[in-house]
């Protein structure tokens, strides 16, 4: 079974991935699926009724707001980085956590690089499909490199001004 890096209780580890990514032109397979927003809108109801876990892959131009009412029934949201420097994914993840209180997995997919680990963790990503072959150890190293942070974000780390109190 394929794997992805999972962040749980501050620990990064390689975890088996029960989900299969299915693009819009591929046939559905058995089991738990990650599908596009469009496909979810047309077929999600049926897949959920079959008792499957379903995740939605959100592209940068797709606004997280459209998922708001569906979030409670989604197992995960896979937020796509078509390129590592497409920063819209960071806003999407942060809103999922902070504004919608989404408790499921928020997974970084696409051009996912270890150098971005710190930022990704702070906005609420807790699963990663690295494109650079990086390991959980490398992710842990990068994500924990700064002892302090200056702003509030979705990770609940106390920002500098709170640490100073």
């Amino acid at each position: 079974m394929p794997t992805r890096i999972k962040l749980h209780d501050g620990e990064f580890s390689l975890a088996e991935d029960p989900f299969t990514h299915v693009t819009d032109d591929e046939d559905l397979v058995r089991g738990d699926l990650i599908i596009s927003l469009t496909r979810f809108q047309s077929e999600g109801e049926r897949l959920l009724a079959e008792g499957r876990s379903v995740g939605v892959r959100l592209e940068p131009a797709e606004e997280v707001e459209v998922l708001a009412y569906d979030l409670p029934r989604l197992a995960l949201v896979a937020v796509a980085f078509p390129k590592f420097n497409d920063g819209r994914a960071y806003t999407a993840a942060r809103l999922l956590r902070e504004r919608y209180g989404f408790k499921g997995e928020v997974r970084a997919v696409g051009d996912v690089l270890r150098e971005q680990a710190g930022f990704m963790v702070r906005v609420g990503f807790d699963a990663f499909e690295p494109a650079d072959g990086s390991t959980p150890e490398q992710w842990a190293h990068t994500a924990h490199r700064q002892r302090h942070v200056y702003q509030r974000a979705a990770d609940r780390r106390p920002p500098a001004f709170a640490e100073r109190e």
Partner: protein
Amino acid sequence: MYQYDTLDKEFLADRAAEFREQVGRRLAGEITEDQFKPIRLMNGLYLQLHAYMLRVAIPYGSLNPAQLRVLADIGRTYDKGYGHFTTRQNLQFHWIKLADTPDILDRLAAVDMHAIQTSGNCIRNTTADPYSGATVEEVDDPRVWSEAIRQWSSLHPEFSFLPRKFKIAITGAAKDRTAAKVHDIGLMMRRGRDGTLGFEVIVGGGLGRTPFVGPTIKEFLPANRLVSYLEAVLRVYNRHGRRDNKYKARIKILVSALGAEEFGRQVEEEWAKIGPEGDLPDTEIARIRGAFAPLAFDSLVNRSEAFETAKAADPALARFARNNLREHKRAGYTIIEISLKAIGETPGDATSDQMDVIADLAERYGQGDIRVTHEQNIVLPHVKLDDVPAVHAALAAVGLATPNVNLITDMIACPGLDYCALANARAIPIAQDIARTFADQDRAELIGELKIKISGCINACGHHHVGHIGILGVDKKGEEFYQLTLGGSGAEDAAVGSMLGPALPADRVAPAIDTLVEVYLRERQGQERFLDTFRRTGVVPFKEAVYADAN
């Protein structure tokens, strides 16, 4: 200035350690230049025509003597004995070796400095009025708010991969020395009707290929709501700014496409959702204000006999005093602006030895406070009038007493084709030509305030659009030509200049400026500046004169 606490220091130390490791991986060949590029660009390291260029952040242009000495020493040890102050109030070293950069960053971190976010599509160094805390004109000290923004924007997890770079400027004075209206966000401090402190928020100004004077999207933002409001602006931009074309990716394009009103509405909507939870606690703002080391001013009268006597005896000092001093809020003190525009030198360059002298003077006479201006000069903001003769003599001894602040030879110029891979034409030799043409100080003073700004390409790092006279280098079939614009301003009366006519070859630029100045001197009425005369007469008399000459 703001005193870094343990936490601020550890933040920089961690960052420097990270970069050392990344450079190590690059030097060991574990990553390619392509993979390394986004990493080095997060740390202000550019690969230029001849070498690496390292851009060091000088938060809101504020330095202490220890920091300036370290910059001087880095220039001496790792560069060719000088540094270049930029229009972002930063400092660039143009001849850096990659292998040296980790050591340089460590040396910077040891004096609370860094190169974080001096490049890349993130929130860049916030610029502020270089006379902050000293000028009689200010409503409040913008450095407090600049420091709050520095912290909030440093390694911001959501806003480090914006569509394009993002620059914020703050002025506490109505007379704007920050070019706030041509920034992605310009903040102009105001007192509200009830006396409370706030900001007028201007969004979507900018230069480059498509210059805009930014519209005001909020007349009065209460000061303690600053951070949440910035978050709202940045979030709307991060989500909706264009990413398909880097030349259309700045926020100005989004604001212009949506219209200021609609953009402002979207920001308000987002801001309401964020709420006051997104703001800094008042206690933290108070802490930041308190962390600015208090200055000890003596009670003095606003006239120094020693200074007056020295001026009467020394015409050079008198001239320096006329042009390079500004009124201080405390009686008996003055603001000294040191021009880095010595005739024939590169605008904005300072040698390591000069930096050391400035550091010494700041320590001895200036309460240890040093500022960099966006017009590429240095300021000693708190000097006793009594001490001006001594400071002037020490500056003169190292070629730093050029008495030309705000005069025609006080130009902005980008590094141009001499250093920059993007440039189409050289900028520095043009500035040097013009400086030599107007080397006569009496004539320069007669001409009065005239801001010339020179860019070596359309990216407009030299701010040519907002020069009273702007000069843009263009490439015509492999030859350097220069396009002149007139009537721009980056100050509170901001405007984008309009084109004079066909571009001129390099050797025609300084003579054309001379002609423009002659037209101004002929046409001006009363106390008009060049800009005022131009705005009254329009382009015609200027155009006729320059192109009559050219024919």
